[in-house]
């Protein structure tokens, strides 16, 4: 290893140590940033040491990464990962530079950063989960990301891809690869998949699977399928008994198990057994106790697809709901998406509009005929809201604030 490279890694590690010691953060991000500043080509060297798998999606990438790590570890494979959610080049460099023997590097990669890290890291396998609208004021339209992903598989079609067969954007991006393992996860949010990514004609969804009348683009046959609460692999049915809640987490688990079996030869049964104990992923789904003894769970929802999933899950529970929304850069500065999300399912619940944009939420609920009160502080709101238990659904900066400061 060159001197420059060693200096890069050592100075980065020092900064990471300083960050942790002073309580500023986990240190991965800052140490990676310094490493890349000293040696911009560092990812190329670091990527060559491990078997790299990247996990990207609009929703579920952090959880899928975590589940895949636990699945592979359960099978006895050594694993390194950027589990602090540091999913851009600096976070990845920081995670890979930590001392470790030859391992599988399971890396969550921001969907917009994938292009920049694939070339230097040269992963063995790319995992494509789903793509939908997210912070349009900041990142632009969905098809722009699809085009960038597709350029990656076109540039190196020999790389293995594990991809969600149910999402037309993902299929379009994965198609150029010669070896694709398709897993049909379903696609609850179809609002960004109205037109064909190949020919722009309207997509039809007979039986919930997409088909283009214009060019024949359609859901590819998938060997792995999420069927209800189980992952089906050929004639095998593997129940997804998870500690983390919701349909969306079964989708994450099915995707992770598919990667484990199709790429790493870990059978899906073993993989799922390894995931079963995961209860909290970077603060997601963490349960806390309110002063009155009720349980309060914080759930992150970042975009319309995520909010819709969470609300539909809550609709089946006897719970009070705090909706905590900010509109900082990391949340998206434009809360127009509130009207994309079916808050009407909360009509018979006790609901509090919260966060810095509590009034945006309250007006949205008002026009959806959902009764609510307004309390900007989500912790005060959680104590006041009714219900046998409490769920705080939080936008990104509300979520990080809650997990860092209060609990």
């Amino acid at each position: 290893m060159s001197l420059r490279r060693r200096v890069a890694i050592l100075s980065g590690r020092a900064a990471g140590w300083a960050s942790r010691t002073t309580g500023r953060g986990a240190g991965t991000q800052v140490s990676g940033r310094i490493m890349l500043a000293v040696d911009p080509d560092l990812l190329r060297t670091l990527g060559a040491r491990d078997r790299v798998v990247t996990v990207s999606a609009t929703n579920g990438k952090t959880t899928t990464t975590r589940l895949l790590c636990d699945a592979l570890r359960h099978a006895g494979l050594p694993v390194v990962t950027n589990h602090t959610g540091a999913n851009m080049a600096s976070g990845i460099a920081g995670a890979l530079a930590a001392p470790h023997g030859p391992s599988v590097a399971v890396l969550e990669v921001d969907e917009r950063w994938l292009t920049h890290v694939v070339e230097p890291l040269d992963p063995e396998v790319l995992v494509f989960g789903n793509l939908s609208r997210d912070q349009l004021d900041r990142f632009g339209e969905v098809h722009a990301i699809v085009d960038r992903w597709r350029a990656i598989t076109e540039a190196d079609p020999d790389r293995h891809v594990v991809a969600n067969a149910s999402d037309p954007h993902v299929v379009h991006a994965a198609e150029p690869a010669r070896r694709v393992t398709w897993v049909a996860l379903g696609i609850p949010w179809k609002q960004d998949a109205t037109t064909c990514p190949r020919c722009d004609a309207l997509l039809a969804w007979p039986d919930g699977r997409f088909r283009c009348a214009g060019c024949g683009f359609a859901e590819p046959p998938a060997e792995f399928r999420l069927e209800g609460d189980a992952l089906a692999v050929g004639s095998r049915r593997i129940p997804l008994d998870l500690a983390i809640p919701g349909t969306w987490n079964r989708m994450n688990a099915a995707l992770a198990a598919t990667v484990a079996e199709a790429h790493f030869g870990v059978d899906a049964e073993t993989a799922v057994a390894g995931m079963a104990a995961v209860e909290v992923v970077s603060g997601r789904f963490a349960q806390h106790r309110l002063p009155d003894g009720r349980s309060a769970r914080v759930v992150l929802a970042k975009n319309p697809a995520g909010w819709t999933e969470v609300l539909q899950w809550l609709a089946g529970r006897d719970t009070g709901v705090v909706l905590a929304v900010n509109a900082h850069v990391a949340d998206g500065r434009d809360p127009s998406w509130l009207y994309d999300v079916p808050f009407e399912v909360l009509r018979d619940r006790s609901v509090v509009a919260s966060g810095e944009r509590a009034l945006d939420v309250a007006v949205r609920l008002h026009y959806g005929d959902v009764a609510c009160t307004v309390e900007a502080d989500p912790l005060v709101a959680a104590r006041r809201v009714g219900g046998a238990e409490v769920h705080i659904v939080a936008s990104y900066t509300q979520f990080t604030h809650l997990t860092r400061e209060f609990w």
Partner: protein
Amino acid sequence: MSSVLRIALVYPDLLGTYGDRGNALVLEHRARARGIEATIVEVPAGTPLPDSCDIYLLGGGEDAPQVAAAEGLRASRAALTRALDGGAALLAVCAGFQLIGHHYAAAGGRSMEGLALVDLHTVPGPDRIIGEVLVEPDPSTGLPTITGFENHGGRTHLGPGERPLGRVRRGGGNGDGSDGVLHGGIVGTYLHGPVLPRNPALADHLLAHVTGTALGPLDEPVVDRYRAERLSFATLTGSARRRAERRLHRG
């Protein structure tokens, strides 16, 4: 208008990228609050527009969906003009606003044919305009200041006989200091997605056009509080705004 006010949400699967459904909810709610029975008629992509609705909503969409919407709308143009000639109203937002003109700029700078309901056209701009907007409406409307959010790359030029919705006090709008268009029962604007929740008077303006009567105010404190908050923040910028947001909610 028949006994039930019919609100057409046009192609929500194509022109619904920015929470555009919110405008339909507001119109329905504010009509019912005045004792007017109202219903939302969703017109999915690929189906012809009915000519029997009272208010038509065209929302925002990404490039490819906008092209698909333009094709469908051109095929239904006769139904739409029949409805407008019969006294219907049309709220055209963002991509929908561009579609009511002669032509607009699609992906890669291609010029695409619009509905030509209004004498305007849209060309690609040098950059994307993203952020909060304040518009002072044309005095003839009697409307108070309009607030909203915009996110678009197009610049829209009105023909000599057309007048804009208002003058832009903050933000980009059409790109020449004005925003949108007012043309009979048609209101066009770049203030995207749910412009009506922030501007209930604009919703009532559309309702009054189709009911033929001025509507009295509604007692909805949360809507008034929200509007006041958005108006005050839209006039601030940068760190002053961030400080104000914190003060409001933590103090």
